[in-house]
């Protein structure tokens, strides 16, 4: 229930302000020779205080000096991201408005068939990855991913993912298929509900971002068993990747930007430059490393293909699991 209500939250103030300001700056941006000369709006489907919202609001003071112009965050919630996608897809492609990408917009596009989908947006650049990890209760009997899989093979595993249509669910389904384990994959309406069921032992394991379970990790209530990515994490150097444990599965939760179709080349090059500088910025590096984000710069050309590949893989997964036809 929480998740569906969360998607109804809106922020009138910022919307009214942002649409007004964005409208006024379109003309200015066209007239100016260098980009960006006015307000650049980053539209997020996240509600104020949500994951993407906090990420962008923290990042903007550091990104601002590298890009120039005036960056603001606008929360367009509703329809699990469909509204935010539609807002940006209909905007003028002059670099004044972008959508903050996460895997959510691909899932919503595929599941709900909204009028504007990920295909109506042009991926700009990627900035970061959020590593996904598999964790278990501190007092559980599982010592590593192998023991979890072994348990699922001999009996029945109980694995939890925060949301039914999510990267986390996809990761678990892939592990299940790759290992031939017999596991029930239980989905919730957000990470909190699932976390409780890992803590109280209803679930063998849960999957999520490190940041979501930081407090529980510090308090030693949870243990991380494996990273579902290509590399180990700096924060948890002893935790192996799933591949090292013999499970050939790796997923990336990406955080980047996409704009309306036909972005001008000067906008793209300005962002590619700023994005690389941002990721290398020593001040910001301290912050994002503390938040367990991995730098994941992807240039425009490759990002278009990256998103396309991701969408195709996801569509295949959704069809295989019978969610969409």
């Amino acid at each position, binding site marked *: 229930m929480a998740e569906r209500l969360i998607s109804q939250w*809106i922020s009138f103030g*910022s919307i009214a302000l942002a649409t007004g300001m964005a409208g006024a700056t379109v003309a200015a941006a066209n007239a100016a020779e260098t980009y960006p000369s006015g307000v650049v709006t980053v539209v997020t489907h996240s509600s*104020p*205080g949500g994951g993407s919202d906090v990420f962008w609001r923290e990042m903007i003071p550091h990104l601002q000096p590298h890009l120039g112009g005036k960056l603001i965050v606008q929360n367009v919630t509703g329809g699990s991201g469909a509204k935010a996608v539609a807002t940006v897809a209909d905007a003028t492609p002059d670099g004044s408005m972008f959508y903050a990408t996460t895997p959510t917009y691909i899932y919503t596009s595929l*599941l709900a068939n909204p*009028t504007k989908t990920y295909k109506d947006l042009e991926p700009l650049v990627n900035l970061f990855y959020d590593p996904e990890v598999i964790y278990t209760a501190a007092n559980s009997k599982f010592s590593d991913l192998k023991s979890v899989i072994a348990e699922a093979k001999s009996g029945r595993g109980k694995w939890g993912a925060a949301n039914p249509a999510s990267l986390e669910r996809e990761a678990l389904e892939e592990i299940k298929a790759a290992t031939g384990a017999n596991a029930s994959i239980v989905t919730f309406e957000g990470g909190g509900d699932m976390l409780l069921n890992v803590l109280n032992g209803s679930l063998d394991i849960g999957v999520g971002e490190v940041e979501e379970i930081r407090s*529980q990790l510090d308090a030693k209530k949870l243990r991380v068993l494996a990273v579902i990515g290509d590399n180990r994490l700096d924060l948890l150097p002893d935790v192996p990747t799933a591949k090292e444990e013999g499970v050939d599965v790796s997923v990336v939760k990406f955080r980047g930007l996409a704009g309306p179709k036909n972005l001008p080349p000067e906008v793209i090059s300005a962002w590619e430059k700023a994005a690389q500088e941002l990721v290398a910025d020593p001040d910001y590096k301290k912050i994002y490393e503390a938040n367990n984000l991995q730098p994941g710069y992807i240039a425009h050309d490759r990002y278009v293909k990256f998103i396309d590949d991701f969408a195709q893989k996801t569509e295949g997964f959704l069809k295989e699991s019978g969610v969409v036809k």
Partner: protein
Amino acid sequence: MDLSYLTQLLLTTPVVPAAFGGIVWGILGGALPGISPSISMALLLPFTYGMHPSAAVVLLGATYFGAEYGGSIPAILIRTPGTNSAAATLIDGYAMNQQGRAGEALGISLMSGIVGGTVGLVMLVALTEPLSQVALAFRPSSYFALGILGLSVIASLAGDSLLKGLMAGVLGLMIATIGSDPVTGGGRFIFGNADLLSGIPPIIVMVGLYAVTELITDRGTGVQERADQSKARIVFPNAAMWKRIAMPQAIGSVVGLVEGCTPGAGGTVAAFLAYSEARRWSRRKEEFGHGSPEGVAAPEAANTATSKTALIPMLSLGIPGSNSAAILLGGFLIQGLIPGPMLFVQHANIVFDLYVGLAVSIVALLIVGYLIMPPCIWLVNRPKPYLSAAIYALVLSGAYAIGNSLFQVSLVLAFGALGFVMKYLRMPVLPMVLGVVLGFMVESNFRRALVLSGGDLTAFVHDPISAGLLSVSALFILSSAVGRFRKRASVSGKVTT
């Protein structure tokens, strides 16, 4: 945390203004039907970035409290629930208003809010650690059983016809199935409309069924008639009234405590459960629905208690007990504080400041709530045509604000028309509202529990909480069925003799 720290906190940091500011803003936001407690808080979030950390979290906490109370004002005065949970207060609150007892209803609502808030805060301060275990004890099967307990009330609330009550309840459950499938994530009954992907918000249904239906029904009344004759004065409960509402307030506080501790249920479920439990245990059951002060006291105590107890799992486990608590969690994150087991170790002073601020906010609610009442009552005593036009504007703009789309506006009007038809058919709307509020919780947790158990239905018996709640529900349904049967037997007996 000695006395000098406390004085210093109250005098040198902006905690007191934050508590008062949060209460004022919360009451305003709560009173507007499009702005839920969580939205009221979310709107403040951007302003908390540069704020003193303690003041920021107190501001948000006080807003939550104020908004949970504020929702009851339009519910009592103009039959428009300002928040989801206020729809429970509305039933008897508006009935009291129609009897010219608006001031009394508002007084009971305010005092019950103070009582609920105080009990909730005491529990939060004294018992956070043990109560966080309640959250851990609840499994999907337990949530399912809790939802069933809520729905079992339909049997006793159905009014003159059990059949009509059940029909309305099922209709509500059907509405709750619109949106994303809780297990597969695919869209259900959304017809390619992205607005429906996250389901129909309960507030849309409630505002439609209550406020719009009333406006449609009202269109026939003459211009000369006054909306009501309520005096523009808030009436605080006297000793006799306190005695009467003590029990429902206690019921409300306990229900609010449990609902706050268990993430996912929230203030709305608490308010409706408290309403029905208060009715169940009341000596004057027949007054419920016709202006019972107990029917105002119980849900108000429950939802304001929830506004405090929802912070228990949020602070101790980092898991918010409601949507609004999730926004408060966002407020903590903005300040660089991570709620969860380590918060009490690393930032005990912030937690202490929050507790102090929440205590101040209870005093603030008493003062602001008292001062805000006369203008509110004066406003609704304006000539009917102006009042009706203003309510239409409030309801429709509120509906638009919920999703920034005209689609929600047409939904509200459609539910208003449905409510009118139901009124004509003498079909009770409360079961339908309960179905909408509880439907998703019941369905998703039922299916989740079955996925977890591998399809084994005995999971609901093996979980002691689920087994207990389900047996209680069965008992209630049975006793209400027997009661109905006896009543009918005695009525037909009278006819024959």
